[in-house]
């Protein structure tokens, strides 16, 4: 489910977690486990390591619901940030086995981070942009066919493809997502 929950849902969830309600923890998992696990897997390319990150991230949120600040963004983006940070930390640890140079490690971290950010951008971008990208990339339609499929003008189809890729290309930039100072990190 790519859609952003309304802020009210985020705040209510935060209160329920703070209150120690196990059913809220279950609902939190049901909504975000797939996001967390996919992002962690994109960085670490390892099922067991992604499971472990998932456990860490939900453990952190459950123990520190107060660390989420709704004014800084959505619960979804906060959880994505925690996941990213935790996964990258694990990747660094797993790579520092003496066989790779620090530069090689950083290069791998950079690639994995960009891939994970790109996934997050794709799942969070406005639905019309994502639909256009899916048609062109996954179904291999040209932009005229995509326009017909979406019921928009050819101009609009070109605009959506370009805008979607422009958004996606920000994944290569220094991550805005890494350290909002108000948010604590995962232990």
């Amino acid at each position, binding site marked *: 489910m790519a859609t952003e929950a309304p802020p009210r849902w985020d705040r209510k969830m935060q209160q329920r977690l703070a209150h*120690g309600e196990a059913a809220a923890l279950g609902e939190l998992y049901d909504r975000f*486990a797939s996001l967390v696990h996919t992002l962690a897997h994109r960085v670490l390319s390892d099922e067991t390591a992604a499971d472990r990150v998932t456990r860490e991230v939900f453990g952190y949120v459950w123990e520190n619901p107060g660390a989420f600040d709704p004014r800084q963004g959505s619960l979804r983006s906060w959880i994505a940030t925690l996941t990213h940070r935790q996964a990258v930390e694990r990747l660094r640890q797993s790579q520092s086995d003496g066989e790779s140079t620090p530069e090689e490690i950083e290069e791998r971290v950079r690639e994995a981070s960009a891939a994970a950010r790109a996934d997050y951008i794709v799942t969070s971008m406005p639905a019309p942009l994502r639909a256009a990208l899916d048609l062109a990339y996954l179904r291999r339609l040209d932009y005229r066919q995509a326009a017909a499929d979406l019921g928009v003008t050819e101009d609009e189809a070109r605009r959506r493809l370009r805008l979607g890729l422009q958004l996606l290309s920000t994944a290569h930039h220094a991550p805005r997502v890494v350290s909002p100072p108000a948010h604590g990190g995962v232990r």
Partner: protein
Amino acid sequence: MSGPAGPEATRAQESPDGPDGPTAPPRAEHPDPPAPAPPAPTLPAPTHKVLKSLLGAWALAACSAEETAAVEEHLTDCATCADEAVRLRDAVALLHPEDNLDLDPRLRSRVLSACLGRRPARVPVPDWVAPYDAETARLDALLHDIGEAEWRAPVRLKWFDGERPVARDTTAAAVIGHLLAVDGLVAAVLGLPDPLGPLVAEGATPTERTEAFWTTAAGDPAGQAPGAVRGGWREQSHALTRTASFAGAEAADRPVPYGPVSLPLADSFVDRAFECWVHAVDIADAIDYPYASPSAGHLHRMVDLGARLLPAAIAGRRRAGLAPPPHALVPAGAPGRTLHLEVEGSGGGHWYIPLDSPGATTSAAETVAHVALDAVEFCRLAAGHIPPEEAAAGQTGDRQAIRDALYATASLSRL
């Protein structure tokens, strides 16, 4: 949106169409001249603006060969577009086909129990709700992965009507509607809104509720997006778990009316967890997905509920003339003839079933029969998915007692 001083203006001056403007929109990508097309060299070159708008489609290899050639020629002499082209092509490299990595359904209980180990819940999910919480989450994960066509996949619902197996053909979407409608019985007892509202009379049976729901717009899979029913079902199942967590220990005994009979709330949650699993398997079989069994602890609770319901089911079959009368009338609280039910495998255990009357106690001395079967097999029998004649690996002792118990188990099933 560059102004007239931008590179667009420079290009536009070279264009025979004159400067780009609202009155002269660039149509160069559609050379559609009224007269027969002149030879290629005199065709108007696409403007910078048009070529720039094509960069996304170009990076995705989603434009025509002529457009691709025009864009690539343009990139050799326009630095702005060349920069953007590189960026967008790198962005395409970040796309990848959906990996369809299914989340392991067992991860949920591992993650949640690790969390609760770090910080105990102030409002826990009661033990008797846990199977329902787990089974609804597993079914929802299955539904997450299925496509529109699979929602319409034919699903055969099977049960045992007391004498023979019966079946009814429906769709995956209608099965979720069935779960939603019957879960609504429990919702009403907890003070939650009944999804059927005034559509059914008080005391309607699960079957009546299901039939009523299927006639509504929300329950008719032809009437709307086939997966739409999932949201309502999931919202209600989350609300049930949440509300039961706050209901307090005494709520466990509150009666939930299933038509003429009723079950205590705690048993009713186990029953709904059982139904959720059974129907998840029906859907999974229909669309050829694997679907595992519940955890051992949850399976045990389901078998236990079935075993506890057996004496009343045996008596009910006798009253209905479907089974011969008991050997002797045993007063309530007195020991009577007993069947030893041994359920093997994960979630199994030993149960002793009074055969003569639901009120009788069991007795080792009067154990007249022994039935052994696997826990999942027992559940499939109780769901009416296998005929009683084919169940039970091991049977020794009084054949009528064994027959009574197996037929009564199958009779626990309904639509």
